[in-house]
């Protein structure tokens, strides 16, 4: 028991030291910078078009777990769900020459990409599913992305713990061939649990980047004025890394 107390005390002292370092300006900037070093290393080693692995149909998980919002009850979402999303619209706006407003039929008629990929949650679990939808690059090109645009923000219908969900990526991930706006999972319309009627697939990053219940795609020059400025719901709320390829 004594030994255990000693261990616990040593552990607590070490943790207190770490937390003190994390609280200093130098500590904070180091902890933030490390995320950028990984992103730099990934970008250096990985071609910007290099793809996440795609699997055969036989690898698909029997059930696709949902996390975060799994049944939004806020705003118009319940009404849209009841209508089978017949009146759902996806806007493409912000720093574009021709803002777009599309319904699900418009989106299904665009050239489609189908990919069987693995979804990795930041918590540690993985699931494999088949996603279908148009590439994001197609919509950005159709809307005419302006030169000043540096990030793409994904607006979502779900309000989780009092804040609207959103996410963002840079143009490298926005134009990646596997970055699609999925309307189907395993050949069926997306279940509500997994983001019906539309969700993003950002295949080289963790699950929280794959915004669900997508209502708008917004091109911006900076993330500073969006939400609390960290680039996403979990980034703002809990300090998750904006670059989620780690």
């Amino acid at each position, binding site marked *: 028991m004594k030994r255990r107390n000693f261990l616990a005390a040593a552990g607590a002292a070490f943790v207190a030291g770490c937390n003190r370092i994390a609280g200093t300006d130098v500590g904070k900037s180091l*902890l933030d910078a490390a995320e950028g070093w990984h992103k730099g290393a990934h970008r250096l080693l990985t071609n910007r078009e290099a793809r996440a692995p795609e699997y055969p149909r036989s690898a698909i998980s029997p059930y696709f777990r949902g996390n975060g919002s799994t049944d939004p009850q806020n705003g118009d979402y319940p009404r849209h769900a009841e209508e089978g999303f017949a009146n759902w619209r996806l806007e493409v706006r912000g720093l574009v020459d021709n803002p777009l407003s599309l319904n699900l039929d418009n989106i299904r008629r665009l050239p489609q990409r189908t990919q069987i990929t693995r979804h990795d949650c930041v918590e540690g679990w993985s699931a494999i599913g088949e996603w279908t939808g148009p590439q994001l690059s197609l919509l950005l090109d159709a809307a005419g992305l302006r030169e000043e645009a540096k990030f793409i923000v994904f607006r979502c219908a779900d309000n989780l713990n009092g804040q609207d969900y959103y996410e963002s990526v840079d143009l490298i991930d926005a134009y990646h061939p596997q970055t699609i706006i999925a309307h189907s999972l395993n050949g069926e319309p997306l279940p509500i649990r997994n983001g019906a009627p539309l969700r993003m697939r950002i295949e080289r990053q963790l699950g929280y980047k794959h915004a669900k219940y997508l209502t708008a795609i917004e091109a911006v020059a900076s993330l500073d004025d969006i939400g609390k400025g960290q680039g996403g719901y979990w980034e703002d709320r809990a300090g998750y890394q904006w670059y989620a*390829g780690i």
Partner: protein
Amino acid sequence: MTRHTFSTRLWHWLNLVCVVVLFMSGLTISNAHRRLYWGDWGFAAEQAWLIVPRFPDWMTIPGYYSLAVARDWHILMAWPFALGLLFMWIAMLANRHFKRDIATSRGEWKPSAVWQDIVQHLKLDFGHEGGKYNFLQKLAYGLVLGVFLPMMIFTGIAISPGMEPTFGWLVELLGGRQSARSLHFIFAFAIAGFFVVHIVLVILAGPIHQIRDMITGGREP
């Protein structure tokens, strides 16, 4: 001639800090999803091969549950850990520390010799004639430097979705992402096991002398 060269001492203490921070922040990350799986995917209890116990806060960094802060520490310390190990390998090949002190000879693998070494350890007899380390020490240091620590880096790379487009072969070699995650966990605990045995043996062999030599270098006996 010192007992431990400067590069060995520098790496030893740097690595200690890295391993402790990585292990303790890793325990928080484990608490975020306390199940381990084999293969490419897994998310529910029925696919798990192990349900990991929840680690108490005093064992974890940051000392309370925050996956984001734990990941910040993990992501930061991965750099000095990986670059430090690379440095140690280059240094120990260049100064022949590996060949002279750690690499084993065929004779040492003879069952009778191994058995004698085990008996000597059990009698807490740490005098070894000739070489710096006896067989069990060489084996332990060789395994830690050559397998356990590098495997933490390889399995860590394999879990990173941003690395997979380039290192897909590594993920496949390790048996899929969830297998890589399981192995990351297993090797972390193998290192923790080494850590405990290492400290117990240092204490039994004379801790003041041992720690002093690892700081100042000490004298070759």
